[in-house]
Each structure stands twice: as structure tokens, then as C-alpha cells.
């Protein structure tokens, strides 16, 4: 095994020599009707629309670029401060600053097309109508391969209730988007973990027409600055991301995959390494998004893709599809691994 992984922290020990030749693993993965060359994408809001990231990563070699949630109109976002670092996490409150759909279609998508990238476009609205309008505007736009519907937004038509926190509101959005969008383009609903029953929300979205699910958006958090004695973010609360939330994210993917095994899932939340990505695939995701880790390491998406290929090869897998949901099933490979890691081979591995 070339990667000495710590199963507990998910960290590869850097000292371990890396396999140099690219292992022959089939990385393609299927998201509903779409086939991606590999399962590693960027998380919405963590790679803008790909251009800046392009300085560090060849965006055409990623599974897809998931773009920052776009709204109909340009939007200035929240006042600063917009972030606070937390232990193994990041709290942010950007407020969906963005150029609006017109400029996005004019400047951002073409750049992605020119550079051979596949785009999963994230859309956000404050009413069901806005979501539908965005989906309609994106019909036929290249290089869009899927839509991701960010429903962690307050519904201005319903006392600011967040769509993702209510199965009915969530399904209203997804039904409208599925209706308005290009029928050939799969629609993913991006869910919030801040609910009592994420399976209920997932099921409602799928029933309304979502082709897949993106799990998870950030957790609602708050940091108080102990010097100012006030909340650190101008918006008081913010969204918590990063490795801190990874166990929550893997749990959500696990639960939803267990309940809806045929629905494709894009998993995300705290992925820093190929082994972290592997956890999400084993839990049931078909693809993963890398978010906050990009801020730590701008070449992370490419690195994680390569580490994942290596980790799969080291475990004797030839295809990504072989591991999707495998942790639910166990099976011979798992059993073999089990005994090794537990030291059941006696004086093996570790001694």
C-alpha cells in the first residue's frame, strides 16, 4: 500500500513515498445522465467561476467546476468582516455576492467553455420564481452539464424561512427548476444539514423531480470575537465549513444514500485529501466537491483527484463505481481490510 493513511484523521502521512506512475483506475463517474471524467469537482462558492483557480489547476482535468451560486441580479453581499477561522473550520458570511446571471452568462461561462471545463452551475433565489427564471436562462448554455440548486436561502415570500429547512418549500423550488431547466441537464438539490430529518428533505426534493442531491451545505455557526465582545461576522451567524464538519457531512451522505440508493449524490464537507474523498464515495456519493481546502491549497482539487486514484489502486479497485456506497455493504475487500487494520494478521502491518 503506497499511502499510509490514518483512518482516524483521514490524513495521509506525507513522509510516505508516493507512487509515481499514474495508477490505472477508471475514474469516470455518472451523475444521472451525465458522465464526468472523474469524481472531483469544486464546491460552489469556493472556486468562483473557475478563472482564478485556473492559475493553479487545469480546470479541464477536473470532474467539473461547480460555480458560485448565481442570482438573477448583481448582488453586493454582506459587509465585512465576512469570515472567522475556527478549529479545522471556517465560518463565512459572504451573502452571495455576485455579478448576476447576465454577466455570468456573458463572461464566466464562456471562459469555462474555452478552457474545456464542464460547469455545474449553482443557482440561488429568494423566491420559487427566481429559481425557475435562472434555470430557464441557463437552458442551452455551454458548458453546463448540470444545475445545482442552492436552497439554503431564505424565502422572502415565506417570512424568510430557509427553503432547505422545509420539505415542502424545498420541493416547490425543485419542481419549478426541473420544469424550467433544459430536460437534458440533471438538476441537483443542495441540502442543508441543519434539519432534524435530512432524509425527509431529500425524499421531497427527489419526489419533486430532482435528479440528484448535493450534500452538504455549511452548518449554521457563530463566533464571538473575545476582543470586541461581539459576533465576529457582520451578519452575526455564518456558515461553518471545512474538515470540522466532515463527520456530519459523511453521516448525511450515508443516511440519504441508505434511504435513496439510486439517487446520485455529490458529497462535500471538509474534504482535504484523497482519503477524505474516498470516505464520501464509500458512504454513497458518486462525486465530491472540494471547498474550503482550496483556500488552504489552491491546487487541492487536482491533488485530491490524484490521491483518490492512488488510494483506489492501492486498495485493489479498478473503478470508482466499485466503491460507491460500498461501506453500506461490506464484502470481501472490506473484510480483508478489516483484519489488516485491526492487526488480526498478528505480527503484520504495524509491527
Amino acid at each position, binding site marked *: 500500500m503506497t499511502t499510509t493513511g490514518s483512518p482516524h*484523521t483521514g490524513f495521509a502521512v506525507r513522509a510516505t513515498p508516493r507512487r509515481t506512475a499514474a495508477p490505472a483506475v477508471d475514474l469516470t463517474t455518472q451523475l444521472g445522465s451525465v458522465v464526468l471524467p472523474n469524481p472531483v469537482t469544486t464546491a460552489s462558492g*469556493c472556486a468562483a467561476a473557475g478563472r482564478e483557480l485556473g492559475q493553479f489547476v487545469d480546470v479541464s482535468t477536473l470532474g467539473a467546476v461547480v460555480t458560485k451560486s448565481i442570482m438573477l441580479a448583481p448582488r453586493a453581499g454582506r459587509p465585512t468582516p465576512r469570515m472567522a477561522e475556527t478549529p479545522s473550520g471556517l465560518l463565512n*458570511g459572504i451573502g452571495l455576492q455576485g455579478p448576476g446571471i447576465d454577466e455570468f452568462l456573458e463572461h464566466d461561462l464562456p471562459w469555462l467553455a474555452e478552457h474545456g471545463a464542464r460547469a455545474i452551475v449553482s443557482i*440561488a433565489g429568494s423566491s420559487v420564481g427566481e429559481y425557475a427564471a435562472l434555470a430557464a436562462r441557463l437552458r442551452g448554455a455551454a458548458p453546463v452539464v448540470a444545475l445545482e440548486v442552492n436552497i439554503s*436561502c431564505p424565502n422572502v415570500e415565506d417570512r424568510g424561512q430557509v427553503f432547505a*429547512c422545509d420539505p415542502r418549500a424545498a420541493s416547490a423550488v425543485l419542481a419549478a427548476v426541473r420544469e424550467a431547466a433544459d430536460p437534458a441537464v440533471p438538476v441537483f438539490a443542495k441540502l442543508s444539514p441543519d434539519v432534524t430529518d435530512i432524509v425527509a428533505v431529500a425524499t421531497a426534493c427527489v419526489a419533486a423531480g430532482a435528479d440528484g442531491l448535493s450534500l452538504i451545505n455549511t452548518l449554521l455557526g457563530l463566533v464571538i470575537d473575545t476582543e470586541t465582545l461581539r459576533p465576529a461576522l457582520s451578519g452575526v451567524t455564518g456558515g461553518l465549513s471545512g474538515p470540522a464538519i466532515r463527520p456530519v457531512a459523511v453521516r448525511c451522505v450515508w443516511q440519504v444514500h441508505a434511504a435513496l440508493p439510486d439517487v446520485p449524490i455529490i458529497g462535500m464537507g471538509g474534504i482535504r485529501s484523497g482519503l477524505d474523498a474516498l470516505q464520501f464515495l464509500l458512504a454513497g456519493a458518486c462525486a465530491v466537491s472540494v471547498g474550503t481546502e*482550496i483556500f488552504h491549497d489552491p491546487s487541492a482539487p487536482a491533488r485530491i483527484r490524484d490521491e483518490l486514484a492512488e488510494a483506489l489502486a492501492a486498495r485493489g479497485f479498478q473503478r470508482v463505481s466499485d466503491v460507491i456506497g460500498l461501506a453500506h455493504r461490506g464484502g470481501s475487500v472490506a473484510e480483508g481490510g478489516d483484519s489488516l487494520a485491526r492487526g488480526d494478521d498478528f505480527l503484520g502491518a504495524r509491527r
Partner: protein
Amino acid sequence: MPVQVRGEVLANRRAGAYHLVSVVAPGIAEQAKPGQFVTVAVGDEPTSMLTRRAFSIYQVRPRGVFGGTVEVVFAVVGAGTAWLAARQPHDVIDLVGPLGRPFSLPKQPATCVLVGGGYGAAPLFPLAEALRARGCRIDVILGAATEDRLFGTLEAKRMSATLTVTTVDGSVGVRGMVSDVLPEVLSATGADVVYACGPMPMLRAVTAIAAAAGVPCQVAVEEQMACGIGVCMTCVLPVIGDDGVTRMVRSCVDGPVFYGERVRFDDIGTVPADAWGASDAAPVDTWPRTAAPMGRR
């Protein structure tokens, strides 16, 4: 184009209240321009500190026995800078740079007043070098709270026509702040342009004084940054564009250097109502989902 390199620490030493760390960083050293910055990944892996720390580039040596090197000056303020201060020669650190827009240099020889607050002096030295290469006259003002927080006074003296030092406690130089001496220096030198780097309130004051004197002014700002490369939108501040429209622009890629009069200093920490994309409606956002009162002040 910025690059990401893992480079060996060559030296890490104290300078008054600050630390100077020099790192082998080929690719960064060759490209760096005055006013640009680097970001550093902090903490031993698996680190709990996810955001990289930003530092202005102080010295670069594009060639050398070890390849190009980059030097930064920093104050220990929290866990990340404490970690950096503890790095030893031969330790390897992860740098990304050069980042951001550099200072613009005058096309003709000009009289330039350089104003630095504390470690904000750091980027002024490569700037002074570039200006001198263009035949500019350089006058420097360095200010700090206390003497040990002045950086580079000796070096500044060497490369400037005049050096004025201020400290808040009066331990050395003029008691007071750089803004107390700036009007005098501007008129004495007949300055053509002002460059400044330091804390935001200093930049605001310098900008106001320069504007009053009719002297154009460039400032290098320091806003909290989560990514440093333009993808996250944390580092914004309200800046007036060529078209007269205020936008919340990213200080990491559209800055950190701005024309002072373009920065709406008084509105930093707000989204001005006339900014592009500002809505008068109640702030609609991704996360607040409580019925409880959540207003900040």
C-alpha cells in the same frame, strides 16, 4: 502568474518587535513586484488553521545559491504567526505568490513620499528600489506605536532623501502619528505622489491629507482574507471604479494597492447603499434562519 511552492526556510530572526523570515521560493522571487504579497500555510499537518496567512513581500533575491528567495516581516499576533515565528532553518513552508496588484510606478522621475506604519514599512523598500531605478527622489515617513515597532529605519535612511520617524509614545522621532508630519513633508518636498502601507485608519488619514494637498496617493490595504487568490469574496471593500460606480471589490486580486481616493474608507465594514448590487431590502442571505433578533448594533 502566482505559483505555489514549498520552500526551505533560510533564516528566521528578530527585528525589534518583528520577525524576518526568508524562504527559498523560486518562481515567486523572480516575478514579485513591489506591493505584492505572499500567503503562507500555517501549522503542522494536519493543521487546524485552514486559512493561509498573508504577508507583504519585503525583500526578494531572484537569484542566489539556493535559487530565488523571498523575505517577509511579520508581527506575532495569533497562533498562525506564532507558528511561523517558530520555524527553523531547513523547515519547509508552503508559499503562494506573488499575489495582488503592485504599486504603479511613475513614468517620469518624480518626488515620492513613502509612508509606512509598523510592519507596513516592509513593501516600501522594494518600492523605493524600483523608484530609485527610475530616478525618483524618495522621502520616507515611518511611524509606529513604539520604537520596537518601527521597521527598517536604518535602511530607510540609506535610501531616502529625508526620513521622518514618528512614535506614539515619543520614544524616538516625533511624538505622534505619521499623519501629524505628512502635510509638512508634502509641502517641503513638493511631492508628486504618495505611497502608503499601514493600518486602515492610517491609510484613510494619509489619503485625506494627500487629497487636500492635491497629491495622488496609492495605498496598500490589509483586509481579512480567506483565500488570497480571488475565489472566496471575503476580502472586499467599497471602491469607486473608473465609471464612478462603487463596487465591493476583492482586495486580494483587485488590490491590495488602490488609489487612495477611490477607497471609501468611511464605508469600510458596510455595503454602501449606492454600491453595485446593494439592495435596500432587508439583507437576504444564505444563512440566517432564526426568528430571534440578530442585528449587529
